[in-house]
Protein backbone atom coordinates (compact mmCIF):
# COMPACT_ATOMS: atom_id res chain seq x y z
CA UNK A 1 0.00 0.00 0.00
CA UNK A 2 2.75 2.38 0.94
CA UNK A 3 4.49 2.10 -2.38
CA UNK A 4 1.38 3.53 -3.97
CA UNK A 5 2.48 6.96 -2.74
CA UNK A 6 5.94 6.52 -4.06
CA UNK A 7 5.06 6.79 -7.69
CA UNK A 8 2.33 9.33 -7.35
CA UNK A 9 2.82 12.17 -9.82
CA UNK A 10 2.47 15.62 -8.35
CA UNK A 11 1.47 18.58 -10.46
CA UNK A 12 3.08 21.74 -9.19
CA UNK A 13 3.19 23.69 -12.42
CA UNK A 14 2.07 26.83 -10.68
CA UNK A 15 4.51 26.71 -7.79
CA UNK A 16 6.17 29.89 -6.65
CA UNK A 17 9.71 28.59 -6.88
CA UNK A 18 11.96 30.96 -8.77
CA UNK A 19 14.04 28.49 -10.76
CA UNK A 20 11.60 26.46 -12.77
CA UNK A 21 14.35 24.38 -14.40
CA UNK A 22 14.88 20.92 -12.99
CA UNK A 23 17.87 20.60 -10.66
CA UNK A 24 20.67 18.29 -11.71
CA UNK A 25 21.26 15.15 -9.69
CA UNK A 26 24.59 16.57 -8.47
CA UNK A 27 22.81 19.60 -7.11
CA UNK A 28 20.35 17.46 -5.17
CA UNK A 29 23.14 15.28 -3.77
CA UNK A 30 25.08 18.40 -2.79
CA UNK A 31 22.06 19.82 -0.95
CA UNK A 32 21.67 16.56 0.95
CA UNK A 33 25.38 16.19 1.77
CA UNK A 34 25.55 19.79 2.96
CA UNK A 35 22.70 19.15 5.39
CA UNK A 36 24.27 15.90 6.61
CA UNK A 37 27.71 17.45 7.11
CA UNK A 38 27.15 18.26 10.83
CA UNK A 39 26.40 14.57 11.49
CA UNK A 40 29.52 13.22 9.79
CA UNK A 41 31.51 10.64 11.76
CA UNK A 42 35.18 11.66 11.93
CA UNK A 43 36.76 12.13 8.52
CA UNK A 44 34.73 9.61 6.57
CA UNK A 45 33.35 11.43 3.55
CA UNK A 46 29.60 11.36 2.85
CA UNK A 47 28.99 9.46 -0.37
CA UNK A 48 25.96 8.36 -2.35
CA UNK A 49 26.24 4.97 -0.69
CA UNK A 50 26.34 6.39 2.84
CA UNK A 51 23.57 4.80 4.91
CA UNK A 52 22.12 7.87 6.60
CA UNK A 53 21.02 6.51 9.97
CA UNK A 54 23.79 3.92 10.30
CA UNK A 55 26.96 5.61 8.98
CA UNK A 56 26.21 9.01 10.44
CA UNK A 57 25.60 10.27 13.95
CA UNK A 58 22.01 11.26 13.24
CA UNK A 59 18.69 10.17 14.75
CA UNK A 60 15.46 9.54 12.88
CA UNK A 61 13.97 12.83 14.07
CA UNK A 62 16.83 14.81 12.55
CA UNK A 63 16.44 12.86 9.30
CA UNK A 64 12.74 13.79 9.20
CA UNK A 65 13.68 17.43 9.83
CA UNK A 66 16.19 17.34 6.98
CA UNK A 67 13.55 15.88 4.66
CA UNK A 68 11.27 18.75 5.64
CA UNK A 69 13.99 21.22 4.58
CA UNK A 70 14.45 19.42 1.27
CA UNK A 71 10.69 19.61 0.67
CA UNK A 72 10.88 23.39 0.97
CA UNK A 73 14.13 23.70 -0.97
CA UNK A 74 12.71 21.86 -4.00
CA UNK A 75 9.01 22.62 -3.40
CA UNK A 76 7.96 18.99 -3.29
CA UNK A 77 6.14 16.66 -0.90
CA UNK A 78 8.09 13.75 0.54
CA UNK A 79 5.65 11.83 2.72
CA UNK A 80 6.85 10.35 6.00
CA UNK A 81 5.62 7.01 4.62
CA UNK A 82 8.43 7.11 2.05
CA UNK A 83 11.15 8.17 4.48
CA UNK A 84 11.11 4.77 6.17
CA UNK A 85 12.16 3.18 2.90
CA UNK A 86 14.98 5.64 2.20
CA UNK A 87 18.31 4.42 3.56
CA UNK A 88 21.17 5.92 1.54
CA UNK A 89 22.01 9.38 0.25
CA UNK A 90 21.45 8.07 -3.28
CA UNK A 91 17.99 6.78 -2.40
CA UNK A 92 17.09 10.14 -0.88
CA UNK A 93 18.37 11.94 -3.98
CA UNK A 94 16.32 9.58 -6.15
CA UNK A 95 13.21 10.29 -4.09
CA UNK A 96 13.74 14.05 -4.41
CA UNK A 97 14.37 13.83 -8.17
CA UNK A 98 11.29 11.67 -8.72
CA UNK A 99 9.14 14.26 -6.97
CA UNK A 100 10.82 17.16 -8.75
CA UNK A 101 10.26 15.54 -12.13
CA UNK A 102 6.61 15.05 -11.33
CA UNK A 103 6.29 18.66 -10.30
Amino acid at each position, binding site marked *: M*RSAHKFKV*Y*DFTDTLVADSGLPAREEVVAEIVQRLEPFRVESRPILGSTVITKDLNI*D*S*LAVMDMVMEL*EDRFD*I*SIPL*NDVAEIHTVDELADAVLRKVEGR
Partner: protein
Amino acid sequence: MGIFDRHRQLLESYRMMRATGEDPLTVTMDRVLSPTEAIINGRKTLLVGTNNYFGLTFDPVCVEAAIEATRDEGTGTTGSRIANGNYAQHAALEAELAEFYGMKHCMVTTTGYQANLGIISTLVGDGDYLVIDADSHASIYDACKQTQATIIRFKHNDPASLEARLRRLKDEPGNKVVVVEGIYSMLGDTAPLKPFVEITKRYGGYIVVDEAHSLGALGEHGRGLVEQVGVLDQVDFVVGTFSKTLGSIGGFCVSNHDGFEVLRIATRAYMFTASLPPSIIASVRAALKIVRRDGAKLRTRLWDNVATLYDGLAAAGFQLGPEHGPVVAVVMPDQMTTVGVWRALLEAGVYVNVAVPPATPGGLCLLRCSLSSAHSRGQLKHVVEVLTGIGRQFGLLPAERVRAVAGG
Protein backbone atom coordinates in the same frame (compact mmCIF):
# COMPACT_ATOMS: atom_id res chain seq x y z
CA MET B 1 19.91 -11.14 16.49
CA GLY B 2 18.36 -11.36 19.94
CA ILE B 3 14.75 -10.36 20.39
CA PHE B 4 15.62 -7.13 22.26
CA ASP B 5 18.71 -6.19 20.25
CA ARG B 6 16.87 -3.62 18.18
CA HIS B 7 16.41 -1.54 21.34
CA ARG B 8 20.11 -1.59 22.20
CA GLN B 9 20.65 2.10 21.50
CA LEU B 10 17.71 3.06 23.68
CA LEU B 11 19.02 0.86 26.47
CA GLU B 12 22.50 2.42 26.19
CA SER B 13 21.12 5.89 26.68
CA TYR B 14 18.92 4.65 29.56
CA ARG B 15 21.99 3.06 31.21
CA MET B 16 23.83 6.36 30.94
CA MET B 17 20.95 8.05 32.66
CA ARG B 18 20.84 5.48 35.45
CA ALA B 19 24.60 5.61 35.99
CA THR B 20 24.16 8.98 37.69
CA GLY B 21 22.15 7.44 40.54
CA GLU B 22 18.39 7.84 41.01
CA ASP B 23 16.51 6.70 37.91
CA PRO B 24 14.02 9.31 36.62
CA LEU B 25 12.01 6.66 34.82
CA THR B 26 11.32 4.50 37.84
CA VAL B 27 11.16 6.96 40.73
CA THR B 28 8.28 5.91 42.95
CA MET B 29 5.88 7.96 44.97
CA ASP B 30 5.54 5.87 48.11
CA ARG B 31 2.52 7.83 49.21
CA VAL B 32 0.75 10.77 47.60
CA LEU B 33 -0.41 13.26 50.22
CA SER B 34 -2.13 15.91 48.14
CA PRO B 35 -2.07 17.37 44.62
CA THR B 36 1.22 19.06 45.51
CA GLU B 37 2.97 16.72 47.95
CA ALA B 38 4.09 13.09 48.11
CA ILE B 39 6.49 10.91 50.08
CA ILE B 40 9.38 9.91 47.81
CA ASN B 41 12.38 8.00 49.24
CA GLY B 42 10.94 8.57 52.72
CA ARG B 43 11.01 12.33 52.20
CA LYS B 44 8.12 14.76 51.92
CA THR B 45 8.46 16.06 48.38
CA LEU B 46 6.90 18.99 46.56
CA LEU B 47 5.32 17.86 43.28
CA VAL B 48 6.00 20.24 40.40
CA GLY B 49 5.63 17.82 37.52
CA THR B 50 2.28 16.05 37.61
CA ASN B 51 0.11 17.93 35.03
CA ASN B 52 -2.45 18.29 37.80
CA TYR B 53 -3.35 21.76 36.54
CA PHE B 54 -6.39 22.41 38.74
CA GLY B 55 -5.31 20.12 41.59
CA LEU B 56 -8.58 18.18 41.39
CA THR B 57 -7.19 14.71 42.21
CA PHE B 58 -8.08 15.18 45.88
CA ASP B 59 -11.15 17.31 45.44
CA PRO B 60 -13.62 15.92 48.01
CA VAL B 61 -16.59 16.08 45.62
CA CYS B 62 -14.70 14.18 42.89
CA VAL B 63 -13.42 11.63 45.41
CA GLU B 64 -16.90 11.05 46.84
CA ALA B 65 -18.42 10.72 43.37
CA ALA B 66 -15.87 8.02 42.50
CA ILE B 67 -16.50 6.11 45.74
CA GLU B 68 -20.25 6.29 45.35
CA ALA B 69 -20.10 5.13 41.73
CA THR B 70 -17.94 2.18 42.71
CA ARG B 71 -20.45 1.19 45.40
CA ASP B 72 -23.37 1.60 42.99
CA GLU B 73 -21.95 0.14 39.79
CA GLY B 74 -18.83 -1.82 40.69
CA THR B 75 -15.11 -1.47 40.11
CA GLY B 76 -15.05 -1.92 36.34
CA THR B 77 -17.17 -2.41 33.25
CA THR B 78 -15.29 -5.55 32.10
CA GLY B 79 -16.20 -4.77 28.51
CA SER B 80 -15.97 -2.38 25.60
CA ARG B 81 -18.51 0.28 24.72
CA ILE B 82 -19.77 -1.58 21.65
CA ALA B 83 -19.91 -5.03 23.22
CA ASN B 84 -20.75 -5.17 26.88
CA GLY B 85 -19.48 -2.09 28.70
CA ASN B 86 -21.82 0.71 27.72
CA TYR B 87 -23.27 2.39 30.83
CA ALA B 88 -25.67 5.30 31.12
CA GLN B 89 -22.88 7.29 32.82
CA HIS B 90 -20.68 7.09 29.70
CA ALA B 91 -23.40 8.62 27.57
CA ALA B 92 -24.13 11.23 30.25
CA LEU B 93 -20.48 12.33 30.31
CA GLU B 94 -20.44 12.50 26.51
CA ALA B 95 -23.54 14.68 26.53
CA GLU B 96 -22.02 16.99 29.15
CA LEU B 97 -18.75 17.36 27.23
CA ALA B 98 -20.60 18.04 23.98
CA GLU B 99 -22.63 20.70 25.75
CA PHE B 100 -19.49 22.19 27.34
CA TYR B 101 -17.97 22.71 23.89
CA GLY B 102 -21.27 23.60 22.24
CA MET B 103 -20.81 20.71 19.81
CA LYS B 104 -23.27 18.08 18.68
CA HIS B 105 -21.15 14.99 19.20
CA CYS B 106 -18.74 13.55 21.72
CA MET B 107 -17.02 10.20 22.00
CA VAL B 108 -15.17 9.16 25.15
CA THR B 109 -12.16 6.82 24.99
CA THR B 110 -10.35 4.93 27.72
CA THR B 111 -7.19 7.07 27.57
CA GLY B 112 -6.18 10.34 25.96
CA TYR B 113 -3.56 8.42 23.99
CA GLN B 114 -6.30 6.26 22.50
CA ALA B 115 -8.38 9.31 21.60
CA ASN B 116 -5.57 10.56 19.34
CA LEU B 117 -4.48 7.14 18.17
CA GLY B 118 -7.96 5.93 17.33
CA ILE B 119 -9.71 9.01 16.05
CA ILE B 120 -6.90 10.57 13.99
CA SER B 121 -6.08 7.26 12.32
CA THR B 122 -9.76 6.63 11.55
CA LEU B 123 -10.53 10.08 10.11
CA VAL B 124 -8.21 9.40 7.15
CA GLY B 125 -7.45 6.47 4.88
CA ASP B 126 -5.77 5.53 1.63
CA GLY B 127 -5.56 8.58 -0.64
CA ASP B 128 -6.00 11.08 2.20
CA TYR B 129 -3.35 13.28 3.80
CA LEU B 130 -2.49 13.76 7.46
CA VAL B 131 -0.58 17.02 7.83
CA ILE B 132 0.98 17.15 11.29
CA ASP B 133 3.10 19.56 13.32
CA ALA B 134 6.68 18.24 13.52
CA ASP B 135 6.61 18.36 17.33
CA SER B 136 3.41 16.33 17.68
CA HIS B 137 2.89 14.07 20.67
CA ALA B 138 3.75 10.36 20.33
CA SER B 139 0.04 9.48 20.24
CA ILE B 140 -0.31 11.52 17.02
CA TYR B 141 2.77 9.92 15.46
CA ASP B 142 1.42 6.51 16.41
CA ALA B 143 -1.89 7.38 14.74
CA CYS B 144 0.15 8.08 11.57
CA LYS B 145 1.48 4.52 11.70
CA GLN B 146 -2.04 3.11 11.92
CA THR B 147 -3.39 4.63 8.75
CA GLN B 148 -2.87 4.18 5.01
CA ALA B 149 -3.01 7.95 4.56
CA THR B 150 0.01 9.92 3.37
CA ILE B 151 1.79 11.71 6.22
CA ILE B 152 3.29 15.16 5.74
CA ARG B 153 5.06 17.09 8.55
CA PHE B 154 5.30 20.85 8.81
CA LYS B 155 7.68 22.95 10.90
CA HIS B 156 6.57 23.32 14.50
CA ASN B 157 4.16 26.22 15.02
CA ASP B 158 4.98 27.64 11.57
CA PRO B 159 1.90 28.74 9.56
CA ALA B 160 4.01 29.43 6.43
CA SER B 161 5.35 25.88 6.55
CA LEU B 162 1.79 24.48 6.85
CA GLU B 163 0.63 26.67 3.98
CA ALA B 164 3.48 25.54 1.70
CA ARG B 165 2.52 21.92 2.30
CA LEU B 166 -1.20 22.41 1.74
CA ARG B 167 -0.44 24.42 -1.41
CA ARG B 168 1.63 21.56 -2.80
CA LEU B 169 -1.25 19.19 -2.12
CA LYS B 170 -4.03 21.45 -3.32
CA ASP B 171 -4.76 19.59 -6.55
CA GLU B 172 -4.54 16.18 -4.95
CA PRO B 173 -7.84 14.44 -4.40
CA GLY B 174 -8.40 13.09 -0.92
CA ASN B 175 -9.10 14.78 2.39
CA LYS B 176 -6.41 16.80 4.13
CA VAL B 177 -6.53 16.63 7.90
CA VAL B 178 -4.27 19.00 9.84
CA VAL B 179 -3.35 18.06 13.41
CA VAL B 180 -2.06 20.56 15.98
CA GLU B 181 -1.96 20.85 19.77
CA GLY B 182 -3.23 23.71 21.93
CA ILE B 183 -0.26 23.67 24.29
CA TYR B 184 2.79 21.53 23.49
CA SER B 185 3.66 19.29 26.38
CA MET B 186 7.43 19.66 26.34
CA LEU B 187 8.13 23.39 25.98
CA GLY B 188 4.67 24.60 27.04
CA ASP B 189 4.26 26.79 23.96
CA THR B 190 0.87 27.45 22.35
CA ALA B 191 0.05 26.97 18.68
CA PRO B 192 -0.65 29.98 16.39
CA LEU B 193 -4.10 28.48 16.02
CA LYS B 194 -5.88 31.35 14.30
CA PRO B 195 -3.61 31.34 11.22
CA PHE B 196 -3.54 27.53 11.26
CA VAL B 197 -7.34 27.39 11.11
CA GLU B 198 -7.52 30.12 8.44
CA ILE B 199 -4.95 28.38 6.21
CA THR B 200 -6.52 24.94 6.67
CA LYS B 201 -9.96 26.25 5.76
CA ARG B 202 -8.61 28.19 2.77
CA TYR B 203 -7.26 24.94 1.35
CA GLY B 204 -10.43 23.02 2.15
CA GLY B 205 -8.86 20.91 4.89
CA TYR B 206 -10.09 19.69 8.25
CA ILE B 207 -8.37 20.61 11.51
CA VAL B 208 -7.99 18.56 14.69
CA VAL B 209 -6.85 20.37 17.84
CA ASP B 210 -5.50 18.37 20.77
CA GLU B 211 -6.27 20.35 23.93
CA ALA B 212 -4.74 17.85 26.38
CA HIS B 213 -2.70 20.49 28.20
CA SER B 214 -5.00 23.45 27.61
CA LEU B 215 -8.41 22.19 28.77
CA GLY B 216 -9.23 24.32 31.80
CA ALA B 217 -6.06 26.35 31.50
CA LEU B 218 -7.05 28.47 28.49
CA GLY B 219 -10.22 30.20 27.33
CA GLU B 220 -12.87 32.20 29.14
CA HIS B 221 -14.71 29.01 30.09
CA GLY B 222 -11.70 26.71 30.09
CA ARG B 223 -12.43 25.20 26.69
CA GLY B 224 -8.82 25.60 25.67
CA LEU B 225 -6.93 27.46 22.98
CA VAL B 226 -9.84 27.06 20.53
CA GLU B 227 -11.90 29.27 22.84
CA GLN B 228 -9.06 31.63 23.75
CA VAL B 229 -8.42 32.61 20.12
CA GLY B 230 -12.08 32.45 19.10
CA VAL B 231 -12.06 29.54 16.63
CA LEU B 232 -14.22 27.03 18.51
CA ASP B 233 -16.90 27.27 15.82
CA GLN B 234 -14.37 26.73 13.02
CA VAL B 235 -12.34 23.74 14.18
CA ASP B 236 -13.55 20.33 13.05
CA PHE B 237 -12.47 18.15 15.96
CA VAL B 238 -11.26 18.86 19.48
CA VAL B 239 -9.47 16.04 21.26
CA GLY B 240 -8.69 16.07 24.96
CA THR B 241 -7.83 14.08 28.04
CA PHE B 242 -9.23 13.52 31.53
CA SER B 243 -5.79 12.82 32.96
CA LYS B 244 -4.61 16.37 33.51
CA THR B 245 -6.96 19.20 34.51
CA LEU B 246 -9.80 16.73 35.16
CA GLY B 247 -7.61 14.70 37.51
CA SER B 248 -8.37 11.18 36.32
CA ILE B 249 -7.81 9.18 33.12
CA GLY B 250 -9.54 8.92 29.75
CA GLY B 251 -9.89 10.82 26.52
CA PHE B 252 -12.54 12.38 24.31
CA CYS B 253 -13.25 13.94 20.96
CA VAL B 254 -15.99 16.48 20.23
CA SER B 255 -17.21 17.62 16.84
CA ASN B 256 -20.10 19.31 15.06
CA HIS B 257 -19.84 17.18 11.94
CA ASP B 258 -22.88 15.16 11.02
CA GLY B 259 -21.94 11.54 10.66
CA PHE B 260 -19.46 11.68 13.54
CA GLU B 261 -21.19 8.77 15.28
CA VAL B 262 -19.86 6.34 12.67
CA LEU B 263 -16.53 6.61 14.47
CA ARG B 264 -18.01 4.42 17.20
CA ILE B 265 -18.08 1.47 14.85
CA ALA B 266 -14.88 2.35 12.97
CA THR B 267 -12.39 3.38 15.65
CA ARG B 268 -10.55 0.28 16.78
CA ALA B 269 -8.97 1.94 19.83
CA TYR B 270 -12.55 2.65 20.99
CA MET B 271 -14.10 -0.67 20.00
CA PHE B 272 -11.54 -3.16 21.19
CA THR B 273 -10.71 -2.01 24.70
CA ALA B 274 -12.65 -1.95 27.94
CA SER B 275 -14.60 1.21 28.66
CA LEU B 276 -13.79 3.49 31.59
CA PRO B 277 -14.87 2.22 35.03
CA PRO B 278 -17.82 3.91 36.78
CA SER B 279 -15.56 5.58 39.37
CA ILE B 280 -13.56 7.35 36.66
CA ILE B 281 -16.62 8.54 34.75
CA ALA B 282 -18.17 9.82 37.97
CA SER B 283 -15.07 11.75 39.09
CA VAL B 284 -14.61 13.25 35.62
CA ARG B 285 -18.23 14.40 35.54
CA ALA B 286 -17.74 16.01 38.96
CA ALA B 287 -14.46 17.59 37.83
CA LEU B 288 -16.06 19.00 34.69
CA LYS B 289 -18.75 20.60 36.85
CA ILE B 290 -16.00 22.23 38.94
CA VAL B 291 -14.24 23.49 35.80
CA ARG B 292 -17.52 25.03 34.67
CA ARG B 293 -18.40 26.53 38.07
CA ASP B 294 -15.02 27.54 39.54
CA GLY B 295 -12.85 27.58 36.42
CA ALA B 296 -12.22 31.32 36.38
CA LYS B 297 -10.89 31.30 39.94
CA LEU B 298 -8.76 28.17 39.43
CA ARG B 299 -7.41 29.54 36.15
CA THR B 300 -6.36 32.83 37.74
CA ARG B 301 -4.56 30.95 40.50
CA LEU B 302 -2.87 28.64 37.95
CA TRP B 303 -1.57 31.52 35.83
CA ASP B 304 -0.42 33.44 38.92
CA ASN B 305 1.58 30.35 39.81
CA VAL B 306 2.95 30.09 36.28
CA ALA B 307 4.16 33.69 36.54
CA THR B 308 5.79 33.08 39.93
CA LEU B 309 7.79 30.10 38.70
CA TYR B 310 8.54 31.27 35.15
CA ASP B 311 9.49 34.83 36.08
CA GLY B 312 11.46 33.66 39.11
CA LEU B 313 13.52 31.20 37.09
CA ALA B 314 13.98 33.67 34.23
CA ALA B 315 15.24 36.32 36.65
CA ALA B 316 17.66 33.79 38.10
CA GLY B 317 19.12 33.40 34.62
CA PHE B 318 17.70 30.07 33.48
CA GLN B 319 16.85 29.52 29.83
CA LEU B 320 13.16 28.59 29.60
CA GLY B 321 10.47 27.66 27.08
CA PRO B 322 9.30 30.54 24.88
CA GLU B 323 6.25 31.67 26.84
CA HIS B 324 4.29 31.47 30.10
CA GLY B 325 2.33 28.23 30.26
CA PRO B 326 1.16 25.55 32.69
CA VAL B 327 4.26 23.66 31.53
CA VAL B 328 7.51 25.45 32.34
CA ALA B 329 10.53 23.86 30.70
CA VAL B 330 14.04 24.66 31.95
CA VAL B 331 16.64 24.10 29.23
CA MET B 332 19.69 22.08 30.34
CA PRO B 333 22.97 21.76 28.44
CA ASP B 334 23.06 17.95 28.15
CA GLN B 335 21.52 14.72 29.39
CA MET B 336 24.01 14.10 32.22
CA THR B 337 23.46 17.58 33.66
CA THR B 338 19.69 17.21 33.28
CA VAL B 339 19.65 14.01 35.31
CA GLY B 340 22.17 15.41 37.80
CA VAL B 341 20.14 18.55 38.46
CA TRP B 342 16.93 16.51 38.56
CA ARG B 343 18.43 14.24 41.18
CA ALA B 344 19.75 17.12 43.29
CA LEU B 345 16.26 18.67 43.16
CA LEU B 346 14.70 15.40 44.29
CA GLU B 347 17.16 15.16 47.17
CA ALA B 348 16.17 18.70 48.10
CA GLY B 349 12.51 17.59 48.13
CA VAL B 350 11.33 18.91 44.76
CA TYR B 351 9.98 16.59 42.06
CA VAL B 352 10.01 17.65 38.40
CA ASN B 353 10.31 15.65 35.13
CA VAL B 354 13.32 14.77 33.02
CA ALA B 355 12.65 15.21 29.30
CA VAL B 356 15.42 14.22 26.91
CA PRO B 357 15.64 13.22 23.23
CA PRO B 358 13.95 11.53 21.44
CA ALA B 359 10.91 12.68 23.44
CA THR B 360 11.88 16.35 23.09
CA PRO B 361 11.94 18.71 20.10
CA GLY B 362 15.24 19.86 18.59
CA GLY B 363 17.32 17.44 20.67
CA LEU B 364 16.74 19.62 23.77
CA CYS B 365 17.36 18.35 27.30
CA LEU B 366 14.76 19.72 29.66
CA LEU B 367 13.70 19.81 33.27
CA ARG B 368 9.99 19.93 32.80
CA CYS B 369 7.89 21.53 35.50
CA SER B 370 4.09 21.66 35.48
CA LEU B 371 2.05 23.97 37.63
CA SER B 372 -1.18 23.55 39.56
CA SER B 373 -3.78 25.91 40.97
CA ALA B 374 -3.18 23.97 44.17
CA HIS B 375 0.42 25.20 44.52
CA SER B 376 0.95 28.05 46.94
CA ARG B 377 3.11 30.98 45.95
CA GLY B 378 5.42 30.07 48.82
CA GLN B 379 5.94 26.58 47.44
CA LEU B 380 6.93 27.95 44.05
CA LYS B 381 9.23 30.62 45.45
CA HIS B 382 10.89 27.76 47.30
CA VAL B 383 11.34 25.87 44.00
CA VAL B 384 12.96 28.93 42.40
CA GLU B 385 15.32 29.25 45.37
CA VAL B 386 16.28 25.57 45.43
CA LEU B 387 16.76 25.31 41.67
CA THR B 388 18.80 28.52 41.61
CA GLY B 389 21.11 27.11 44.28
CA ILE B 390 21.54 23.85 42.39
CA GLY B 391 22.02 25.73 39.12
CA ARG B 392 24.95 27.58 40.72
CA GLN B 393 26.45 24.33 42.04
CA PHE B 394 26.31 22.87 38.53
CA GLY B 395 27.81 26.00 37.02
CA LEU B 396 24.66 26.73 35.02
CA LEU B 397 24.31 30.12 36.68
CA PRO B 398 26.99 32.54 37.85
CA ALA B 399 28.20 31.58 41.36
CA GLU B 400 27.86 35.07 42.78
CA ARG B 401 24.48 36.48 43.61
CA VAL B 402 24.71 39.06 40.86
CA ARG B 403 21.42 40.20 39.43
CA ALA B 404 20.96 38.70 35.99
CA VAL B 405 21.22 41.89 33.96
CA ALA B 406 21.04 40.16 30.61
CA GLY B 407 17.80 38.45 31.60
CA GLY B 408 18.89 35.00 30.49
